[in-house]
């Protein structure tokens, strides 16, 4: 069973790198840091659940995961960032595929909270998952939303923070578990590259009965799975690999 998803992840990782190489555009390291989180959510969420990507620059990761689960066609990945493609550098809302448009940080999270509120108003079942970045937690609207979610008792809202330490040059968003707890949330930490741990934290039965909104701070590595990117995430943040690099990364991914 474990072998299966490891094989899946290798293929998705390769799809992300290939996509960005082909487009000569995109954010590979962010896509790689969220890969296991997205995989776990899309593998386990039921049809009443919804997912909002707030850190839109992880788009390549999202597209590759959606292609893996058959939500979009694999060959469509080749159109990533093309002039007439619907798979842009940041996702644009499309029914059945992307719940929200993103790109500017600090927007997807309050939109997801609004959607969670609408489900409460309409008495609809299901949970709302939202993926935000640790850097994104610099935005004031993240904390406005954290306040709202607690006050509005949005127990159907699950925020996953991709804590990939990308903020080490900035005034870093530290101690996010404590911060979310201080805002009245249930908050826990997890290894963001360990799929069984993510699944057990978010999808085990006890996780579904919190009376508060739930924040999972996922410790991740930017560029996970490609050593050159893990070692130099800043150079690779927004960069496409050359043909030679592509071959090297392929060998590394499938080794």
């Amino acid at each position: 069973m474990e072998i299966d998803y490891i094989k899946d992840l290798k293929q998705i990782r390769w799809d992300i790198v290939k996509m960005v190489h082909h487009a000569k555009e995109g954010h590979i390291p962010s896509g790689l840091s969220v890969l296991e989180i997205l995989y776990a959510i899309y593998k386990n969420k039921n049809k009443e659940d919804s997912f909002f990507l707030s850190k839109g620059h992880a788009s390549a990761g999202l597209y590759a995961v959606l292609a893996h689960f058959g939500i979009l066609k694999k060959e469509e990945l080749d159109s990533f960032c093309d002039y007439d493609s619907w798979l842009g550098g940041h996702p644009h809302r499309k029914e059945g595929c992307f719940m929200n448009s993103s790109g500017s940080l600090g927007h997807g999270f309050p939109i997801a909270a609004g959607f969670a509120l609408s489900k409460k108003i309409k008495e609809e079942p299901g949970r709302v998952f939202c993926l935000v970045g640790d850097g994104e937690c610099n935005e004031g609207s993240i904390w406005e939303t954290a306040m709202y979610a607690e006050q509005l008792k949005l127990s159907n809202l699950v925020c996953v923070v991709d804590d990939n330490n990308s903020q080490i040059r900035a005034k870093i968003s530290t101690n996010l578990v404590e911060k979310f707890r201080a805002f009245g949330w249930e908050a826990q930490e997890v290894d963001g590259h360990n799929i069984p741990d993510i699944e057990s934290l978010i999808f085990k039965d006890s996780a579904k009965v919190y009376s508060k909104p739930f924040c999972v701070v996922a410790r991740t590595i930017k560029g996970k799975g490609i050593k050159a990117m893990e070692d130099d995430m800043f150079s690779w943040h927004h960069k496409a690999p050359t043909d030679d690099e592509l071959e090297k990364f392929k060998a590394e991914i499938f080794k």
Partner: protein
Amino acid sequence: MRKQFAKTIFEVGGLDKRLTVLIGDISHFLLRDIESNYPSRFFNMGMAEQAMMSVASGLAINGLIPVVHSIAPFVTERCFEQIKDDLCYQNLGVNIISVGSAFDYASLGCTHHCYDDIAILRTLPNMQIIYPSAPHEFDILFRESYANGKPKYFRLPAKTHNLSTKPKFGEVEKLHDGECVTLVAVGPQIQNAYDAAIELAREGISCDVLHLTTIKPISENSKKIIVESVSKTQRVVTVEESSILGGIADEIANIAYDVKFRHRRIGIQDKFMLNYGKYDEHCKANGLTKEGIIKIIHEFK
């Protein structure tokens, strides 16, 4: 005007269970009937206008019809990017309703003035802008458009006019016929424009008076009415309680781009209004009075 706002929202909210009200910690007393009758669809979101606007976007994605309400600068200028990305880019039916139009809060100073809302929101694709200036105008225009699935901004002024207008979404209304000048007014200034036209008519200067309650979109038929009037008079005076940059003056100039005409813009020049005092004092200082309009037209050879 605010009472009509509360009454209309209460009535529409009773008929349409999708209507959901978010307020930025103002108008609690005014909206108390909505709060007590529809508690599951009324939320005081406090002073967090950026997230409030995005939350409204999330409500609309799931088919609800949000009304977001606060003072003009805080629900337009402060959260402009949320309006751009989360309402307009995603083309979602959220109704923003502001009070404190232009310099209604005269004495509170420039942070509470809002002259640029129309100019900045006009630039956003999908955005619709409605500017009623009498209670019946808000009631008619809100009911007509609130569920049309587009992002909308209703600018509610404190001062209202006493004219028997017949507003229709997207349409210009001609309130007075003339030959010499096309006088286009929006908001409460329509009263001054109309009164000026009556007085000028006695002197033999006749004006077409055009009243816009929808700033965007303007129907093709209404554009035709504007172009015909401007072609006839070749003189335009626009009157607005907003910046002369990007407001109605620019809209009329855009519509009549193919016509040769001269134009005087009465409105707020490119400046901060650093005085305090009362609404009427600001109107007087900026030519936004019947006398101010007559003076401009007298000088407009």
